[in-house]
């Protein structure tokens, strides 16, 4: 289901990050959600609709509005530029109902949340949920400098909220954070791939069970060179433009396809490849190394293609 909302607030949090608030035009209450949930925002431009997913940063149990924080990616497909340059307070905006691919495991004795850069966003709703549920947690936020740390304005000041600014010499020490946590602690990481890998590594070294280590690496689909795909059922050829994802191009061509996260993590858009003469540029977090190498499946929300022929089972 889609929600037709209005942009009611835009705030510059840092030179690159803006906060947006959306509300129902008649003040109706929006569906509440769970910490870590995201919405998909529609950005109509010309004959295409671009859709990006963003973590909700507002209070999950407060239906009066939804808030997201968007970092401007100057080399992206244009989604974040649309949000930063085209959108004003009072504009209409269409978003999806919330969905959650990064939920808290409420069985945990304690939750350790680690956010790097804009990866702080899913934790902003989670920490509100943890507060309400009165669950023990600590949050670590790493950013380069005070100026870039957009999350500073959104984080409450509290003893269990730690900010690590590398420019001020306070680098995050993962060993110190994870060592000595009580049994049954779960750790959640969101941010650059390097950070996610480093946390997983550290946790493994300390003998944490895999099921207690969670991460979300959701990024917007990257732009790239244009390419063509053939739709097996109709024989139709669809051209994917440089600033379009394959999923967006398929949608624009009215080819039916499933999706949820649009960030390569939910698996929903997985599509069988019938013929591939060339190389699939896998950018998702779903397919395994073997599946990638086999070139028999593609995740159209994130991945692209370089070669002479790509035929999809659609």
């Amino acid at each position: 289901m889609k929600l037709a909302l209005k942009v009611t607030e835009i705030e510059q949090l840092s030179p690159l990050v803006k906060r947006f608030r959306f509300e129902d035009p008649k003040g109706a209450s929006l569906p509440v959600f769970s910490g870590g949930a995201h919405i998909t925002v529609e950005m109509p431009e010309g004959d295409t609709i671009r859709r990006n997913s963003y973590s909700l940063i507002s209070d999950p149990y407060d239906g009066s509005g939804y808030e997201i924080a968007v970092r401007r990616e100057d080399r992206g497909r244009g989604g974040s530029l649309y949000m930063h340059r085209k959108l004003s307070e009072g504009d209409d905006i269409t978003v999806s109902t919330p969905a959650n691919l990064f939920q808290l495991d409420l069985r945990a004795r304690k939750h350790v949340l680690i956010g790097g850069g804009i990866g702080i966003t899913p934790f902003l709703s989670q920490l509100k949920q943890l507060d309400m549920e009165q669950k023990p947690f600590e949050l670590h936020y790493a950013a380069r400098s005070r100026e870039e740390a957009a999350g500073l304005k959104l984080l409450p000041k509290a003893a269990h909220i730690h900010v690590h600014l590398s420019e001020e010499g306070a680098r995050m020490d993962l060993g110190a954070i994870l060592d000595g946590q009580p049994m049954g602690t779960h750790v959640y990481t969101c941010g650059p791939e390097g950070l996610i890998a480093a946390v997983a590594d550290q946790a493994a070294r300390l003998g944490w069970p895999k099921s207690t280590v969670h991460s979300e690496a959701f990024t917007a689909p990257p732009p790239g060179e244009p390419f063509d795909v053939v739709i097996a059922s109709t024989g139709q050829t669809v051209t994917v433009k440089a600033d379009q994802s394959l999923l967006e191009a398929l949608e624009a061509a009215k080819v039916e396809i499933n999706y949820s996260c649009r960030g390569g993590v939910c698996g929903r858009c997985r599509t069988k490849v019938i013929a591939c003469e060339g190389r699939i540029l896998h950018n998702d977090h779903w397919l395994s190394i073997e599946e990638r190498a086999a070139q028999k499946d593609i995740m159209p929300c994130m991945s692209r293609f370089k070669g002479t022929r790509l035929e999809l089972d659609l």
Partner: protein
Amino acid sequence: MTMQFNDETFRGDYTYHNSQKAIRRFPFPFDQDAYMYSVNIEQHPGGPEGSPFEVMFDVDEHYVAEMKDREITLAEDPLRCQSLPHMELAGWDLLELIMVSKARDYPELFTLHRDGNDWHWINKPLGIEKKFTFLDPTTLPCGPMEYITRQTQGDFALLHERDGNLWMDAGMVTSQADWSLDFDVGMNFFEWHAPVPKARKMGVFDKALKFLLSVGQDQSYRRLNWTLTVNPRLDTSPETYHKWGPEKRSVTPENVGRKQFLRVELQTFFRLPRSNALAFPIRCYLANLEDLAGQPKWGRRLHRVLRDIDPTLAEYKGFAVNQEMIVDYLSQFDDGAPTSPGIFPDG
């Protein structure tokens, strides 16, 4: 219009009965003259006026008696209601979903006043009036899931999503057909479906799990499942098999029409907002062969379905021993005429 509730029992003297109206709205599960195991999923709610598909949580003439039967089962075996600690939030989600739906769909029976987290709930058929604080378990006599499911027909499973699977970590199960909560709490989707023959091989569960994981907050779905039971018994759990199992042998050609019941489960799926858990209510409807055959289309079709069914399914659904008697009885209603498509009765 106020609803009349039957004075009836689901055990002992088995005075359970269906009015003409209840028979006509029975969720007959066969949409054609043959049966195949499939994942026949539709959007819920939605369906003809008066059908059990019309609203989120159907309330019918059996409501009060069913809730009494649940009370008896729980008094004998409190473990039929279990909730692991991390599922309490899902319990509140479920309580909200049911209270809001019932107050909206049956305003003459249920009322809900909400002022922030101060809630006031009135359930007229059961004579309950309660003021409590939403999300504060100390203000209810028991956990939120138990509280609301003692007032709602059907069994309930609450599923926790993790590691790409669904785990049944809470439930209220007093009218199950072929599974047991005690056995299933903490089990994942594949473990608790393991006994269904053929389905695993057909990849039905992989598809079903994939589907369930993708159910979003604003979507809810249903499917029908069925089995046969002797006598209108809700509690046909493995734990009490010694009480009801032998009743299978009390069926004779003379009483089969009245004693043999078609048991239909209306299974629905909801994604709960605060907990991101899945709610899986399983509502049970019972009608005997005689009542069903009163609808000519159903009499013909039931005969054909039960006559031609795969023997392993007849075994799994527990009626193989009486199949011949059942089919003989039903044959008198089958004149060989074609049946109309769909599940609803003619005329």
